[in-house]
């Protein structure tokens, strides 16, 4: 008998994230939870692995036990090191470093030093040395998302991260997908210290607004926190036509890639309660990728959200 059940469908991807997140139950505390992989084949994006990993550490540290069904169908997960997070021997033989793989396996980040090590190795692991513009976007986003976890999640286990380069052969898209998750207090609890948030969905909508931070009340926070990281990251993903998704508690927000974008409140969906926060960011890679232009577009979107521009920028001196 299980206390929780997590079914991983054959395509656990951000486009159809609800198929994975809605029916899942993520218990914490003593008990046994069954993680069942799809009986035929399982493709999991990095955010799914990060979520499973972050929950796995937290659950086991509280005395929980994880059992796995259809383990042989989750070779991709074991290759990323998921077995370590589940506290089980790896069900399939994996190579620690495979030359042809372009991925960052699951990794736990608890400190600035851990983050520095990760950032120093990402370009090599994703083989992005020849694509410096795209590498910049990936490093930038990884830093911002991990620091959010370290500063706000209150999780003793820190952030769990993973990333994967996707070649164009399947979807025609060539992109890097980044997953960052934690099993901390979640977005709603963080923001409710300073804002009135009626639901987990409201908390997500607030968190992606520029200038909202759980650190202190007031616009653009404190000397240390602006509350701009998620808004900038969302804008950067959008500027490359990639998805941005944020899930916490019983809600998930995911951007739309449609030409005519629905309003944000229509992009919030209900999910099974996740005890913490999951972020998925996709950066679309192009021959003519231009990180400066991506930053410029993100700055423009940011400017629209904060309604205008300050005259002070004309006084900034660059030498």
């Amino acid at each position, binding site marked *: 008998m299980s206390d929780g059940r997590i079914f991983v469908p054959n395509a656990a991807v951000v486009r159809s994230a609800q198929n994975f997140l809605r029916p899942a139950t993520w218990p914490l505390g003593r008990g046994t939870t069954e993680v069942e992989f799809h009986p035929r084949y399982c493709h999991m994006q990095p955010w799914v692995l990060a979520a499973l990993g972050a929950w796995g550490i937290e659950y086991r540290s509280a005395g929980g036990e994880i059992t796995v069904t259809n383990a042989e169908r989750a070779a991709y997960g074991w290759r990323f090191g998921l077995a370590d997070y589940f506290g089980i021997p790896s069900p399939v033989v994996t190579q620690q470093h495979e030359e042809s793989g372009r991925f960052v396996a699951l990794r736990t980040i608890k400190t600035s030093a851990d983050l520095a090590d990760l950032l120093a190795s990402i370009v090599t692991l994703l083989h992005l040395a020849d694509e410096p513009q795209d590498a910049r976007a990936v490093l930038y986003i990884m830093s*911002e998302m991990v620091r959010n976890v370290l500063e706000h999640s209150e999780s003793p286990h820190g952030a769990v991260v993973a990333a994967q380069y996707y070649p164009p052969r399947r979807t025609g898209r060539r992109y890097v997908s980044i997953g960052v998750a934690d099993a901390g207090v979640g977005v709603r609890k963080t923001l409710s210290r300073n804002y009135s948030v009626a639901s987990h969905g409201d908390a997500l909508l607030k968190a992606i607004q520029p200038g909202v931070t759980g650190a202190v009340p007031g616009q653009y926070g404190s000397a240390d926190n602006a509350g701009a990281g998620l808004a900038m990251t969302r804008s950067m993903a959008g500027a490359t036509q990639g998805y941005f998704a944020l899930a916490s508690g019983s809600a998930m927000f995911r951007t739309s890639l449609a030409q005519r974008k629905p309003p944000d409140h229509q992009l919030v969906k209900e999910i099974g309660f996740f005890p913490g926060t999951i972020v998925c960011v996709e950066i679309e890679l192009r021959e003519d990728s231009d990180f400066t232009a991506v930053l410029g577009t993100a700055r423009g979107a940011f*400017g629209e959200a904060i309604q205008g521009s300050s005259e002070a*920028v004309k*006084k900034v001196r660059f030498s």
Partner: protein
Amino acid sequence: MKTVTIKIKPVPGTSLAENKDEAKRLREDKILPQLAAGGGLKLDFSAASFVTQSFVHALISEALRRYGEPVLDRIDFHGCSEDVQQVVLTVVDYTMQAHQAATTPLSAAKATTTA
């Protein structure tokens, strides 16, 4: 006006400056004391070809908040790539807007809006 140069260091093995702990240390130990003493600053970004918004925020937003727009006359952003410039401008932009909103009396703000 005496000017102090502060070199911004990237994460080893990358050209990204993102360590907010380091930014905070620079702000508290060097930037704010120098500005309080009436001096100038040369923030040298030549070793970092890109930076995160959080890093730049931790570095300069408090100075902008304390001293307002005039402090920009005392800060020289040196050796900035286009990417660094974009992020610096973003942080200056939203910080000064928030500063302006906080220091403008409500009646004046209303008059500006309706003008």
